[in-house]
């Protein structure tokens, strides 16, 4: 087989997360490309949770649309996710635990494994999860020692005994499965070596480090906190600092302070915290202080669905804060892009001296997948920093921090620079800084600020296009649903449709002229968003980019938008092996089909490093990549 999706499901608090992580990392080390995603409730113990890991021979961008091997530790695993089992799927369960069996009518292979007994044999019932992944590896025909190194890394702190016991547990499961069921799902051998395995949040954190950011102030919130975890573990080694603030208002104001001082500074949060930052975002805009804000969106409104994904903060990103400021909003579509965009965001914040908002979401932030090695850090562009030697201040004159310039951007002095003293104020102000109300200066200053982004252009990275040069069907998406849309496109193409996929990466300022050619000619535009009201659609309409009639795919039940959601419009299905009546071999997403000409991992996709840009759409809108 080309790819296999494994799921382990149980009650929260049962170690499902670490089990999934071990499985994913091991298979990644084995040479496969994995994509793991965890489903979890907003409580600590109890409540169903599961971890799906897609294992493939080529890079994949979602956790897939089916489940091939399931280790089921609770009733919900089968009750709620049984419908996703592929034809011939294997279900590992402990017959002595009295679990429900799979729903009737699904053609699955039951694999009863005495998980508890085998775990006990290895040293303790707590290791039954590890037994189950051992069994899964057995069914896949892998090495018995596939988990050894990961288990060592995971449990090293707990001592050699624990490591050995877990290694034994995995091997017990492996042996049992091979003996009783043989190899049910053999993966063809790996073909390439993935470079790294990390989550979108880790990619953001790594991007920040790579960009020279050394200051994070944040307040814990699901699903953003792991950005903080990674940075608190790494910043100190690089001279950086993480402050756990008392709330999000403090967090962003601290980041603004650090940005004013000259650091590359950021804050990370999710919806509720983002809402609290509105006033300060305006302050950054008005004082022209660089700051990067990561919003890892989750299900809203209010506390909403705190452990579920959604793309519903867009309106607030675009319209939040009273009054009018220049701001940049970017949405990464993949984990690699989360790294690249974050890295770039710090340049943009300093070049344009304004807040930059990165629209991530829970799906992108918490999914953990194999990616090619990310491009190493490289010197960034700090924008117009005042250089006293080449730009001396006129004698006796105070520094004009807000000098009115043609491009609206004024050289910035940093505290510590002699002669650069000025006051930054959230009030309207003169070129020197202090507040002023004179209508003429006011208008000049508003225009100066709003003009800053007039020429903003992310270049080829602003929008991404893949697919037919003259599509009949145009899928439009943004953010984390890229993978699902790419899969849907592949199925549609296989079904004979002329299809394209347009992904909006730069959301504000919107690259209107880059988008227009794509949108002007498509016959059937389908806008796909993880929200209920179609916020991106409204945004595009604001610029007159859409015809009166478009079709929509909106998912807002908290789960990531899938290819199936999109394909349902055509009664197509993404899975080769479906339940009876759903089988559609042509719809099977074969790994590799998603990788298009010029999209090879080595070159990175979509690339924000100008030097590396390959597959972005050109301003004129010529669609450069074709379906293989």
């Amino acid at each position, binding site marked *: 087989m080309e790819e296999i999706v494994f799921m382990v499901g149980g009650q929260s608090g049962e170690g499902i997360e670490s089990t999934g992580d071990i499985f994913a990392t091991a298979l990644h080390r084995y040479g496969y490309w994995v994509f793991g995603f965890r489903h979890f409730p907003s409580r600590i113990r109890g409540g169903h949770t599961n971890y799906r890991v897609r294992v493939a021979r080529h890079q994949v961008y979602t956790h897939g649309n089916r489940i091939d091997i399931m280790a089921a530790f609770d009733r919900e695993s089968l009750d709620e996710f049984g419908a996703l089992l592929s034809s011939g799927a294997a279900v590992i369960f402990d017959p002595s635990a009295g679990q429900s069996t799979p729903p009737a009518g699904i053609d699955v292979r039951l694999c009863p494994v005495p998980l508890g007994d085998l775990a006990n044999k290895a040293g303790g019932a707590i290791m039954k999860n590890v037994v189950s992944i051992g069994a899964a590896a057995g069914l896949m025909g892998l090495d018995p020692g596939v988990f050894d190194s990961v288990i060592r890394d995971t449990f090293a702190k707990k001592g050699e005994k624990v490591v050995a016991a877990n290694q034994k547990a995995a091997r017990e499961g492996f042996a049992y499965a091979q003996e009783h069921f043989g190899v049910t799902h053999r993966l063809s051998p790996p073909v390439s070596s993935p470079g790294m395995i990390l989550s979108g949040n880790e990619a953001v954190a790594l991007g920040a480090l790579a960009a020279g950011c*050394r200051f994070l102030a944040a307040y814990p919130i699901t699903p953003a906190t792991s950005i903080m975890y990674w940075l608190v573990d790494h910043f100190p080694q690089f*001279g950086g600092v993480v*402050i756990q603030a008392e709330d999000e208002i403090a967090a962003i104001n601290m980041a603004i*302070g650090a940005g004013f001082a000259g650091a590359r500074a950021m804050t990370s949060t999710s919806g509720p915290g983002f809402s609290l930052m509105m006033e*300060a975002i305006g302050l950054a805009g008005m004082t022209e202080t660089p700051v990067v804000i990561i919003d890892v969106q989750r299900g809203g409104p209010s506390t909403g669905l705190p452990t579920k994904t959604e793309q519903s903060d867009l309106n607030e990103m675009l319209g939040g804060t009273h009054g009018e400021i220049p701001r940049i909003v970017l949405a990464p579509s993949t984990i690699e892009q989360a790294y690249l965009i974050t890295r770039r965001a710090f340049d943009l914040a300093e070049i344009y001296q304004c807040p930059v908002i990165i629209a991530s979401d829970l799906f992108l932030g918490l999914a953990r997948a194999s990616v090619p090695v990310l491009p190493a850090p490289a010197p960034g562009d700090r924008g117009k920093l005042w250089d006293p030697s080449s730009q001396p201040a006129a004698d006796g004159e105070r520094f004009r921090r807000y000098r009115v310039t043609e491009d609206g951007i004024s050289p910035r002095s940093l505290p510590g620079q002699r002669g650069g003293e000025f006051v930054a*104020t*959230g009030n309207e102000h003169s070129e020197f*800084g202090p507040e002023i109300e004179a209508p003429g200066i006011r208008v000049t200053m508003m225009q100066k600020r709003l003009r800053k982004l007039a020429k903003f252009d992310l270049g080829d990275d602003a929008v991404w296009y893949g697919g037919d040069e003259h599509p009949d069907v145009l899928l439009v998406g943004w953010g984390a649903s890229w993978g699902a849309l790419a899969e849907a496109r592949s199925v549609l193409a296989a079904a004979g449709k002329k299809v394209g996929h347009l992904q909006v990466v730069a959301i504000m300022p919107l690259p209107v002229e880059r988008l227009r050619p794509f949108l002007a000619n498509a016959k059937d535009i389908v806008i796909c968003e993880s929200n209920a009201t179609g916020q991106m659609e409204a945004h595009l309409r604001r610029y007159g980019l859409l015809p009166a009639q478009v079709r929509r795919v909106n998912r807002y039940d908290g789960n990531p938008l899938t290819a199936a959601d999109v394909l349902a419009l055509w009664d197509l299905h993404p899975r080769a092996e479906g339940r009876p009546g759903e089988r559609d071999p042509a719809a099977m997403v074969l790994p590799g089909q998603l990788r298009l000409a010029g999209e090879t991992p080595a070159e990175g996709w979509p690339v924000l490093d100008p030097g590396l840009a390959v597959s972005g759409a050109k301003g004129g809108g010529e669609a450069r990549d074709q379906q293989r």
Partner: protein
Amino acid sequence: MISSADLRADTPTWCPGCGDFAVLAALQRALPLLGVPRENIVIVSGIGCSGKISSYLRAYGFHGVHGRTLPVATGIKTANPDLLVIAAGGDGDGYAIGVSHFIHAARRNIDVTYIVMDNHIYGLTTGQTSPTSPRGFKSKTTPAGAAEEPVDPLALALASGAGFVAQGFSGEIGQLASICEQALRYRGFALVNVLSPCVSFNREYSYDWLREHLVDIDHEPGYDPHDYATAVRYVTEHHGLLRGAVYVSDRPGYVESLVGTRRPVDVDWEEPKARWPELVAEFN
């Protein structure tokens, strides 16, 4: 070395007689004594008449939004510990909308001098009851008299673990300047609550009234500002009507414990580049 004159920027627009003039003057007197060059001084201010001080003290200034001086100051100081950072605002700014940051800055012991120009009123918004206005205080928002007990800034600072707690009075500019100097030299969070009369909207807390009621603990025989219990007792017994250094402790500072030899402002791409293979390996 800088002189007081070097620290003058725009001419203040405060009302003639406003207590805030004395605060500005005290800072302009104290700062030159520290030997810190002007470009290394940053004053962060809030919104209110008091908040305008950052336009009048010539240095780097950040005039943020209402109530958020301390987070901004914390960000600046942490990003560049070489800077001398002052936060300054009003009683509304600091003890109403901003009181959470006050408590957390105190327990964090960030090395910032926090000067509150406490006039027991909202000045800039033309005279509403503030959190330090006494119970029964009449204003346009409490025509029947305030129903709340006032915040006691000194008690709150002590309860929050502030390392340096002092109160000054705009009518005693010499002492005020000396308090400011001590606070600025203090390595940690230092509160200077200044009783700074608003001559336009608050006749209750006039210079005369304050002069009459304040006890000068700097000259109180036997008063030891290093003794926490005594400080608490004095503040309670005198209902906060003290002037001088109320409490001085030595707690370990926050920034020192976080920031090493390299400062977050030193933007660097080289080290992560050099260590890239190691970082990539971590993700495998």
